[in-house]
């Protein structure tokens, strides 16, 4: 009982001290028994949010399934940096088939396990935002709609990073990418485009949908663990900064994730059967500039004569998230 009185967040810090917690409350990542499913030695860039997110998520899923887990992986950075022939970083059964079929491949694995009566073996599918929100969207929606027993994890770094930073349907407005150049009357990505896949997933009324960021390990592990306790189609959308694609310092990956949450840019919530059941409240609300400024993909908004109108539009989007999900207050 005494442990429950300990506050995770101590005044003035954002850290969670494992030493303050009982052994069973400590994070999977802090444990010596973690599976290290995505092992060290892979070729991700310094500060890669996706590598971090995948490590957190898969280790948590492995812990939740006693290591009885199979992964299907979309083409993309995660696939390329983890499996350069003849090496692999995956200490788990892992398959890469194509860019756009990962959810379907995972469905096939789950079906095989069901046919063989292996109810103990669970399946996770993972991909980047391009492989999830664009090219893999048909298979993803099919997997949701059939309520196949798969946890799909999207590592969202908001563009096609593997091919050299091109726009995806998860790229935010005004962001510079190689295909949304900072030229012309409306530099960067267009406003009024893009899709919100967590909400589309909710519209399928699947058992579980959640968003998370690499800034909050405990929240991420909690959501993955919860997802693995449920059968049927589940979706977790993890916000993972890309230092290379965003033009951000590699040591700012966690900071940018936190600022995305605290500014309202990325609402962190969970939903069951289409209903929001929980949100991560903003603790210290920050203006959108705090999130935008450290990223070169938004550099054209600042400088000598800042594009205040565009910044205001981005702020309005964040404000809408805050209103929509009730991200402020106790």
């Amino acid at each position: 009982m005494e442990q429950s009185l300990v506050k995770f967040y101590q005044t003035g810090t954002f850290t969670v001290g494992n030493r303050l917690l009982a052994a069973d409350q400590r994070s999977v990542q802090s444990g010596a028994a973690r599976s290290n499913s995505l092992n060290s030695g892979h070729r991700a860039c310094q500060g890669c949010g996706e590598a971090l997110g995948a490590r957190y998520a898969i280790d948590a899923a492995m812990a939740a399934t006693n290591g009885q887990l199979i992964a299907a992986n979309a083409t993309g950075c995660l696939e390329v940096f983890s499996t350069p022939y003849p090496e692999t970083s995956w200490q788990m059964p892992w398959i890469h088939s194509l860019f756009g079929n990962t959810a379907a491949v995972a469905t096939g694995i789950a079906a095989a396990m069901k046919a063989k009566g292996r109810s103990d073996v669970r399946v996770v599918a993972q991909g980047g935002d391009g492989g999830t929100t664009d090219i893999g969207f048909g298979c993803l929606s099919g997997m949701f709609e059939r309520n196949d027993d798969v946890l799909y994890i999207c590592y969202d770094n908001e563009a096609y990073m593997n091919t050299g930073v091109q726009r995806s349907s998860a790229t935010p407005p005004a962001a510079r990418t190689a295909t949304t150049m900072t030229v012309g009357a409306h530099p960067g990505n267009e406003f009024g485009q893009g899709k919100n896949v967590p909400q589309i997933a909710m519209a399928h009324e699947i058992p579980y949908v959640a968003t998370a960021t690499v800034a909050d390990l405990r929240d991420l592990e909690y959501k993955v663990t919860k997802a693995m306790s449920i059968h049927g189609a589940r979706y977790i959308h993890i916000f993972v900064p890309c230092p290379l694609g965003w033009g951000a310092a590699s040591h700012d990956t966690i900071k940018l994730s936190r600022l995305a949450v605290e500014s309202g840019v990325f609402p962190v919530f969970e939903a069951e059967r289409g209903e929001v059941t929980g949100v991560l409240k903003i603790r210290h609300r920050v203006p959108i500039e705090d999130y935008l400024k450290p990223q070169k993909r938004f550099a054209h908004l600042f400088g000598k004569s800042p594009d205040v109108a565009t910044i205001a539009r981005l702020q309005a989007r964040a404000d809408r998230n805050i209103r929509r999900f009730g991200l402020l207050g106790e």
Partner: protein
Amino acid sequence: MLEQCEGSHAVAQAVALSRPEVICAYPISPQTHIVEGLGQLVKSGDLTNCEFINVESEFAALSVAIGASAAGARSYTATASQGLLFMAEAVYNASGLGLPIVMTVANRAIGAPINIWNDHTDSMSMRDAGWLQIFAETNQEALDLHIQAFKIAEELSLPVMVCMDGFILTHAYERIDMPDQAQVDKFLPPYEPRQVLDPNEPVTIGAMVGPEAFTEVRYLAHAKQMQALDLIPQIAAEFKQLFGRDSGGLIKTYQTEDADTIVIAMGSVLGTIKDTVDDLRAQGVKVGVLGITSYRPFPISAIRDATAKAKRIVVIEKCFAVGIGGIVSRDVRSAVRNRPQPVLTVVAGLGGRAITKASVHKLLQDAIADKLELLTFLDLDWGIVNRVLEREKTQRRSGPIAEGVLRDMGTVASKVAG
């Protein structure tokens, strides 16, 4: 047991007797009755330990089969035409990963113009995708080939496409000798994968391979298909021993021993050609037929040997490569290279046009009289073709081709008038 049934039903039964563990279904004519039949068997409980999954596209159908096969399940799907094209990326992926999936292709034309009837353009589009392609002549053979296909696929760890003529076979009611479960179980053991996603023995499947080893990986795919040239006849012989029927193998010949003229074809049209050969033989004409059952791997030696004494070879094919001509005939030419006999290409039966005995008869008479050109389009209506060509010459805005052709033929006009 003998029964009278639809070709699709026969195939569904054959697949069910092969004890598949995952079946992915997406409707496309003329394949649909097969997966409907299998769905019925799974839902009724007649086919157990099997997941039947209604997917959202052909791309997903084969992708689900890829995941299931990699996880160690015997996996099956069926498609045709546009569906095969829509799953093209996964077709190459399944063979590249070495996954022994069996897929029926109910052969159908590819649009535009959209056409649901039979030809071989769909399978031909995937001839270099690394799958084995075996073609059925009859519904009995389609049934038999499916059972053999699982065995061939799993022995090689390569996917097999069983090709059967859409509608002509899939929708035809014929007498079928249906094997019983004990016979099939004796022939086809449970699937023992060479690679499998297993948490207790984790492997990485589908790693990236660069220039340092890509050629070797591709060569190994070729080497396996070359192994199949021995394996396919071997499995056909085993099949014959157990089931008492000649089905499968690389090629089959009819009256070729002393033939001056050998006709080569694939699929159901072989029956029509054999009937024509019988008629010509009755008139003393030395003509024979060679049916290609295994199109991939292509049985170069078998075809070369079987045609050694012929003066000419006529390839009747239900497909063609726009801009050059025949597809099957080009492969046949490579089989008989350095020999003086001409290999004549006859493109026939596109989009379901009937290949009649009368047309084949006339064609063969022309061939024997050395009047057949290197590339012939059987029963082509030159009147229609020339009218379109003329219109395009004289009118800038000549309109959509297919619509123009139908207008010339009067079909559209009569419908409007009616």
